[in-house]
């Protein structure tokens, strides 16, 4: 019944805002297009709107700068994406700044006052050619550079001795498996899921026995996916139930996990967790976060790389994560050696 109460308030507000106008006697007579006074006021207000938009832009660019992801990409491929991103974003900001100015300035300048006469100007091939050709040239550049970056990021065929890791998504957690000594993953299918074999690995496949499943380490509470610095990692992605998406924002990497098929993405981690914790953007961001957490009485946190789910997958989609740790390669190898293969766990 409370809903009804809110709906009644809503209707009353509608009626009230109409009555309000009548009370103030704002309703005018005759002129149905717009009076000079209206043009004047709204012309100035348009400049105000422009100022508001610029204000939001500057406030966001400066004030919200430290909420952004650290500028330093944690992968070598991500660096190329960042260069392209900065170039495109720079272009967008310049164009946005100029075009919005022209739009609002014209609106203000040509507001209908003092018997202004409009200028009959219906066509100009010269102008239209200019603003067809310039965007075409700029876009050609963006397209060529974009496609070069895309091919560079997506093509992992020439990687030497890559590390092969499988990520397995399910409602609402991640599992993972390293390819082991032979660097080949054993076959898997949901039909093999049984008991402890939660990833559905086919143990009759000879490649499977040396695979290393990711488990909760000793003295830890959550699983940690360790990756080596400066070695290409090829991820093979599978899903057990619905669509998921493996999103690692710090590495500028994302790929969907699709039930019934294996998808792939690859990158070369270039900054260890320890190094990223010393990065100045990261420090500024976490300083801010920890101040906020302290106000709420929550414990302090440290930076960690994360794997998030980024495709709607059900009720707990918002909390489907895996911690990632990037180590120097010798440390990584040491860590991996402590993990048990399937053969050892059996």
């Amino acid at each position, binding site marked *: 019944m409370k809903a009804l109460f809110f709906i009644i308030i809503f209707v009353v507000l509608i009626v009230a805002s*109409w009555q309000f*106008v009548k009370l103030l006697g704002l309703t005018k*007579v005759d002129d149905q297009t717009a009076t000079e006074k209206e043009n004047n006021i709204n012309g100035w207000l348009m400049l105000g709107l422009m100022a508001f938009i610029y204000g939001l832009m500057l406030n*966001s660019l400066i004030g919200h700068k430290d909420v952004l992801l650290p500028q330093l990409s944690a992968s070598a491929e991500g660096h190329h994406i960042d260069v392209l991103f900065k170039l495109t974003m720079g272009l967008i900001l310049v164009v946005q700044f100029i075009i919005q100015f022209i739009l*609002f300035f014209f609106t203000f300048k040509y507001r209908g006052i003092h018997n202004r006469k*409009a200028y009959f100007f219906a066509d100009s091939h010269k102008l239209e050619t200019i603003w067809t050709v310039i965007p075409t040239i700029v876009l050609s550049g963006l397209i060529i550079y974009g496609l070069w*970056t895309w091919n560079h990021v*997506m093509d992992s065929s020439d990687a030497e001795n890559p590390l092969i890791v499988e990520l397995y998504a399910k409602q609402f957690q991640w599992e993972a498996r390293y390819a082991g000594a032979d660097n080949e993953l054993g076959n898997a299918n949901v039909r093999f*899921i049984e008991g402890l074999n939660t990833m559905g690995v086919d143990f009759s496949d000879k490649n499977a026995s040396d695979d290393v499943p990711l488990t909760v380490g000793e003295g830890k509470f959550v699983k940690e996916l360790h990756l080596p610095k400066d070695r290409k990692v090829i991820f093979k992605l599978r899903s057990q139930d619905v669509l998921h998406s493996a999103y690692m924002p710090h590495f500028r990497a994302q790929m969907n996990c699709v039930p019934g098929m294996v998808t792939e993405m690859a990158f070369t981690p270039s900054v260890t967790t320890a190094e990223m914790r010393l990065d100045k953007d990261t420090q500024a961001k976490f300083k801010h976060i920890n101040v906020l957490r302290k106000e709420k009485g929550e414990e302090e946190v440290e930076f960690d790389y994360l794997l998030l789910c980024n495709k709607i997958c059900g009720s707990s989609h918002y*909390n489907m994560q895996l911690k990632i740790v990037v180590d120097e390669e010798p440390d990584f190898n040491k860590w991996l050696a402590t993990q048990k293969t399937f053969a050892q766990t059996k």
Partner: protein
Amino acid sequence: MSDHHHKETFVTKYIFSQDHKMISKQYLITGIIMGVIGVFMSMLFRLQLAYPEQSFSIIEAFLGRAGEGGVMTPDMYLSLVTIHGTIMVFFVLTAGLSGTFSNLLIPLQIGARDMASGFLNMVSYWLFFLSSVIMVASLFIETGPASAGWTIYPPLSALPQAIAGSGLGMTLWLISMAIFIASSLLGALNYIVTVLNLRTKGMKMTRLPLTIWAFFVTAIIGVVSFPVLLSAALLLIFDRSFGTSFYLSDIYLAGEVLHYKGGSPVLFEHLFWFLGHPEVYIVILPAMGIVSEVLAVNSRKPIFGYRAMIISIIAIAFLSTIVWGHHMFVTGMNPFLGSVFTFTTLLIAIPSAVKSFNWITTIWKGNIQMNPAMLYSIGFVSTFITGGLTGLILGDSALDINVHDTYFVIAHFHLVMGVSAIFGMFAGVYHWFPKMYGRMMNKDLGYLHFWLTAIAAYGVFFPMHFVGLAGLPRRYYNNTAFPIFDDLADINKLMTVFAIIGGLAQIIFLANFFFSISKGKKASKNPWKANTLEWTTPIEHMHGNWPGEIPAVHRWAYDYSKLDENGELWGGQDFTLQTVPIRNGEEEF
């Protein structure tokens, strides 16, 4: 038009009407009601996003068990975003926008007595009404409405074990959408046939107002792409109910292996976006048409580059059908295909840029009449540019990787097609209200409505880009599970405050709209001093639109402020109706 002198009953005049003007009002009012529901939902989930752990009695009041204690459940959050998206995209911005203005303006602006088939037109509205009722009804069922996102990707949407909303809620969603698609197709076919066949004498295609061009091309895109969504939905119904495996394969859920084998969700994504992408142009093109008209009328100037505008509309429509893959760069689609879609997608920027520059040139050296319709049109150009520019990032496959499915996308599409299309729709309502109801809307309320809405729209969606660049995925019930997003709380609150201001501002519009229908000042025959044919019809609506002969057309629609050889305004006024013959010594444009 045999029923010209037929005596009309209440039922044939107001309910099962075949008159395009009445059908257009029916579409508009249904669209407004659906819009109120959709916007209200967004206010509820914005509250959840800004204050995740706090209790709100309004949430408990409206969501009942799913909002027990004043905090909504995660499933209800997903249902709200799903139904908000569905309602806004299809019911408000497709049916509400195209349905209203195509129906009102096509016959009136081309000089026809009615649509080619009044009967099909009536059926089209009532199918839309039925689908709206089913969609709204799905909000009240026990397992909750559909909750797999408005894109309803299987397997989530196919398996009730995966999420409760994929039970009866999704069934109703699919039935509602199937009926909706039938309605749009009937409407669109009617629009196409009418524009091609029923133009009055002298109304060449190159003399049509840009509104008609936009509606016409929109209808064509609809006819090409909506059937594909229908087939996608049918195959999904098969998978859900008859055990087929079009989209499903190798699934282990709730402790058992399901029997599906060999299908692929990626197939659904292809089919969905084959409609889904053209759909955004189905939404934005009519708004572009309306804005082109309103800008010209109120700048008292011809639209700049009329032919370039038509070519741009056609180019956008063509490109829109070959870019759908840019929604799927990270779905596991072949990277080469990604390259092709990047190329076609970025090409759309060219006609879009041409249109934007042409609008700006239209107001240059004009004599701008700042009525509410004009303010909304200028607002449209502004938000279209702001939102459109970030398309350069999302359309570029390499850059899309890291912003895909984050709030950056939400900010982009809300500005470029959500806010812009709504602005176009408001511009249309304020501009053609006198034609629909014979009365004027209150201008001061209109101004207040525009300023609050424009500020709120930018206030919500501009900072949202930064939330996306911080890496926050969309469709997260809250972000408290990730300490790295703790510093987004301030921005989230700011956006919610603006969202509530924007939502409440619509009360002003509703008051203005519904009271002006009966209490507004009487409109004159041509209140905006416009050139197009609809302003030659009597204020009082009549079946058949013109009392006598349909007037013949002698010129294009944009002879504003045209000067004769002595530098004086032709006929002493700054507009020349399309029905005025070319005068001695006057050059036709």
